[in-house]
């Protein structure tokens, strides 16, 4: 059974004129338990509209959303459950922190779930640990944290609900390189240790190549491509037509192939690149 599934999901924003295309149309998405699914596509392609359906923030105008096999719009209870089962972390989530202390802010979600106090405390500590925030941060005001820490505290707030699927909308946007790296590491670790499903919207193709088990490409409200990194980044020309790019490493390897160096077409990360060139060297490959 898929952790998250959409069937022919369509959404037309209300009060848009006749002939206005739907924001998303006919999306069939399937994320298996424990999978890390990346959603790419440029601004306005429908990525955010799509993920807002996954925890019932938007009601489809067509099609359906299933979480752990259950149609989330079945009844009131299933709608409420979707909000807890799918943890949605918006872009720049630190702007939404409002509590006096980091601890209270992280506890906000679990508290809303009606959990007992000691369970809330345990979850806050666990979530803080996942995002690498020391316990000494918890009594601080969110405003006293650095930009990267604030971002991680806000993500911890969603993790503390211990959702079956975690959805992150551009979690590394606007951070410095070290901050980006930290967030990528914590996502990988969270997924490894909890075995839960993660959906990630990103504009950074290096990040996508490094993290994704599966990639969904949105274009003009539709799912244009879906597959592994090899299946998606192997279609560089099509991606470029959609105004998207491939990882820099992939671009460099395209040039190498064009110049006659027999390298694999399936190179998406620096590590793969190093291994591939080392292989060529061992095999004594030479250009004329």
């Amino acid at each position, binding site marked *: 059974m898929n952790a998250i599934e959409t069937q022919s999901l369509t959404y037309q924003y209300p009060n848009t004129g006749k002939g206005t295309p739907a924001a998303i149309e006919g999306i069939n998405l399937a994320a298996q338990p424990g999978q890390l699914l990346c959603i790419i596509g440029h601004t306005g392609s429908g990525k955010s509209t799509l993920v807002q359906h996954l925890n019932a923030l938007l009601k489809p105008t067509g099609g359906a959303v299933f979480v752990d096999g259950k149609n989330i719009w079945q009844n009131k209870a299933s709608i409420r459950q979707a909000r807890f089962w799918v943890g949605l972390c918006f872009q720049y989530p630190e702007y939404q922190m409002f509590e006096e202390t980091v601890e209270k802010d992280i506890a906000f979600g679990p508290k809303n779930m009606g959990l007992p106090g000691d369970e809330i405390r345990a979850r806050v500590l666990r979530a803080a640990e996942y995002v690498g925030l020391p316990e000494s941060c918890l009594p601080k005001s969110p405003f006293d944290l650095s930009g990267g820490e604030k971002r991680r505290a806000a993500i911890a707030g969603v993790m503390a609900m211990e959702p079956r699927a975690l959805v992150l909308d551009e979690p590394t946007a606007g951070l410095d390189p070290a901050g980006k790296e930290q967030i990528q590491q914590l996502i990988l670790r969270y997924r490894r240790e909890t075995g839960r499903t993660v959906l990630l919207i990103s504009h950074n193709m290096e990040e996508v190549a490094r993290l994704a088990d599966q990639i969904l490409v949105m274009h003009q409200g539709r799912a244009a491509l879906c597959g592994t990194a090899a299946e998606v980044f192997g279609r560089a020309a099509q991606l470029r037509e959609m105004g998207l790019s491939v990882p820099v490493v992939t671009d460099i390897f395209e040039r190498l192939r064009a110049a006659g160096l027999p390298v694999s077409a399936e190179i998406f990360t620096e590590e793969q690149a*190093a291994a591939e060139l080392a292989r060529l060297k061992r095999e004594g490959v030479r250009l004329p």
Partner: protein
Amino acid sequence: MNPIIEFQNVSYSYATEDGAESAVQGLCFAVSPGEFVAMVGRNGSGKSTAAKLCNGLLIPQEGRVLAAGMDTANENLLFEIRRRVGMVFQNPDNQIIAATVEDDVAFGPENLCVPQEELRRRVDESLRAVGMYELREAEPHKLSGGQKQRVAIAGVLALHNDVIILDESTAMLDPRGRTEVMQSVRALNRERGLTVLLITHFMEEAAQADRVLVMHEGRLLAQGAPRDVFAQEETLRTAGLSLPAPAGLARLLREDFPQLPRGILTEEECAAAILEAFR
């Protein structure tokens, strides 16, 4: 030629509950007219403080800053300094105030009491310079992030400024928006001689500048042409920065291919160096 921005031993600290937190310390650098300078450094390294010191949004507590030859500590000159040294900030949604694109661009010069005809001319010219003239009557909230940032840049140009400071102005944009803004800024620099100080976390953007300044803990850790700065891999590591992606790949590959040079900036250069290693 006299520098258009000059930092002379500048220090600035912010007041905190437990005293003061130093943001920049003994900072010295100069930007020449027409130069395109990028400033990089991790969060908290003092970049934004330095930016705000450039046009008197902050006044040095030690040392002094000269903007177009004017001391930013002289209150009487602040108006003229801010006209000549314009700033574009990070969030595209926080810096547009008017109901149409052209009204927004007119806001600055209107406040300077620029006569109507001249105002029209400046607005049109500024919007053309950033490729937003066709959308002059559009409502700003319907624009993309990259378009909004270009409108903000036009708003600065309409003041007939000499310097533009972009404080992470591309950070919140998608790749297409970033490219649009960078293309506009580069064209303004090349074609009109506009001086640019670009503060950025994207090393690929910094690689396009004439000169890169590396900030670390409130001080200038390194500076030079992008090729030379990005060749200093240890220095960048100290500063908590990454390399432009092609340089990063070259660094990793150097274990097996020690002949790959440092200071590679583009995909093209990286591919050429790898091919050379196989000849």
